[in-house]
């Protein structure tokens, strides 16, 4: 094979790989990126029934209910005016409590109940999920 041909083949292989990876990434991002919703967002436009989303807000006062199995809890996430009921089975993070911020991962059921598969832990007293502080400073950082 001539050197020229070889370079061409290599460039072609690189191009195919890049395009393939790009297509794969783009299609996967379209389906699988989990969007962040507040109860207000859910009230405005319901997410697709099977889509994995993150729900963020405050745990409403006196809303935590323990079920008889000792593992399942139900609580309400609110953001001022709107409320979303949540159900979760498992061990909640240490700093999960009423009147405090929470981010839950899961799916919204057809009945409007959010079935959480994971409740995000806060790492310490000062930690707030980035979603709770609002993305403003991030956008600023990037724009500067």
């Amino acid at each position, binding site marked *: *094979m001539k*050197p020229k041909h*070889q370079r061409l*083949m*290599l460039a072609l*292989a*690189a191009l195919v*790989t*890049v395009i*393939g*990876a*790009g297509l*794969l*990434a783009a299609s*996967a*991002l379209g*389906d*699988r*990126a*989990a*969007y*962040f919703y507040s109860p207000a967002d859910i009230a405005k436009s319901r997410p697709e029934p099977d889509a*994995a989303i*993150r729900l963020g807000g405050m745990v409403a006062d006196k809303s935590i209910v*323990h079920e008889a*199995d*000792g*593992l399942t809890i139900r609580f309400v996430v609110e953001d001022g005016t709107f409320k979303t009921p949540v159900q979760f*089975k*498992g*061990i*909640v993070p*240490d*700093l999960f409590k009423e009147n405090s911020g929470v981010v839950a991962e899961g799916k919204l059921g057809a009945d409007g109940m959010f079935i959480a598969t994971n409740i995000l*832990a806060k*790492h*310490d*007293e000062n*930690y*707030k*999920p*980035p*979603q709770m502080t609002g*993305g403003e*400073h*991030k*956008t*600023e*950082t*990037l*724009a*500067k």
Partner: protein
Amino acid sequence: MIAEAGLGLLWLAAALALLQFAFGSMVVAKGRDQQLSSVRSIAIAQGLLVTFSFLSLVWLFLRSDMSVALVAANSHSAKPWLYKFAGTWGNHEGSMLLWVMILGAAGAAVALFERSLKPATLIATLAAQAALSIGFYAFLLFSSNPFTRLTPAAADGQGLNPLLQDPGLAFHPPTLYFGYVGMSVAFSFAVGALVTRDVGPAFARAMRPWVLGAWIFLTLGITAGSYWAYYELGWGGWWFWDPVENASLMPWLATTALLHSVTVLATRDGLRAWTVMLAVVAFSMSMVGTFLVRSGILTSVHSFAVDPTRGSFLLALLAIYVGGAMALFALRIGTVREGNQFDLVSREGALVANNLLFSAILGIVFVGTLYPLGVEAVTGEKLSVGPPYFNATTGPITLFLVMVMISGPLLRWRQDRWKLLVQRLAIPTLVVAISLLALVLAAPDIGVLPFLGLMLAGGIAIGSVAPLWGRNLRRTPLFTWGMVIAHLGVAVSLAGMASETGFIKETLVAANVGETHNVGPYRVTFSKLEPVAGPNWTALEATLEARRGTRQPLILKPQSRMFSNPPTETNEAAIDTVLDGQLYLVLGKQEPTGRWQLRMWWKPFVSFIWLGGAMIALGGFLALIGRFRREKGRGRGIA
């Protein structure tokens, strides 16, 4: 006094870095190679000064000097000494000082030990390394000074984040940093060789040990970090595709690709431009990682403080260094002579495929990690890209990568034939087919990824030892052994991941003391619950007895800990490792009726994940020793 001395040393080191850069550039420009020894001395002095500056910060932490703002904010006099020591880098300023120290020390090591590079290229390399240091010295001195005094001094410190109070903190960050920042040497080598137009096999042979060394640390750091997250967070997961993990994975992917392409350049004088490019990309990924983790743009256990100016500063440094290196690359690459030719079906061809696939995975991880940040910056919409994306995209590419990995070492350099390759692949293919059959019969419903993982692990295991076939084992060079063991490590790790994902058993219960529950092959009895106290925490500790057949019962004691400084609760999982897996128990909360939540996992062969990681690093280590021996032999004119 010590704080002022540390700051003074840091300023001096920064001044020397400036000198090293300016003098080095001048010497290269004027072609005065005989000045090499002066440049060498400056680099060594700079490395020593910054090391002493770092040691003074360590000393301040060990003495709990509360008149230093950083110590007061991140330490406490009642902490065990190990955490005072490791706490030095358990915060933003301290970890950046460690970063810069390794940058300086790596430059000093190159000045001390690098003997095979052409003098002009070595001077240019040291100047480039100094240029990198200057920016990070400026970052420390102007926006993250670790030695700032606190007046009046605090009565005592605020303590270290309890999640970081773990022996892992003493090893994981320094190891990872040695790898991360060690890649700066490859970057500087590439820049140096571009400046002096010295890209060739001799350059590649000189660069290879440095790349290998950084890669070993990076591999160990990622493996240790994964295990640390696994046992410390109490979630039982070993890889979360968290942006911080990706920040360490991206340099590893680029470095692994570089490690393979530098071999082509060293042995066959091919892939010149590509290898130089990868060296630049690999350290750029280290800087991207540092930016992601240290700018406060991500919120995690790793981002200690949020300060927008720091983010902008790091972003500017990133733009200058990556942009500068790329511009130099574009200017000079025309003058890099075309390397040797090779056939598509050849060892080189397989290594090119390896490089393309590693780059594709790198690109996919890069996009997935930065996409949410980009979307939020542009539209303000918040989203997260998690395991579903990464598994769906990297999975198929890894499949191809594994096929290349099995066939590559079986190919000859320069030219080979398809027919012969197919013959040599017969046995690995047979093993894959047999494991496929066994899996279909034994475990038909474990999911696609675990299925493929187990199947391919068998193939890799056979494929990786195949290069030893028909060789005299005692005369096989050490670096061939290194490759075999590293590739075998991939098989072991992959088998661990697949087995854990496919065969995990989980039991989540609310139990009273005295109850017994099953998880996997174990019957676990909750025998008691009592308070215990440590040096700076109190805890509730459950005692659980795990019985399996007639074996001696295992005693596991998970805790729910309450730390005093700062007041925080953590879960300490109890893990017991047996030959065929791990039993992982977490004590949860007490529910209103008085029962305790217990989460129990049986994870078959999960420890193979980290065992494989350690084998990969060991393979790198053997290859490094093998190379040194070979070079020494060359020096004596034996080889």
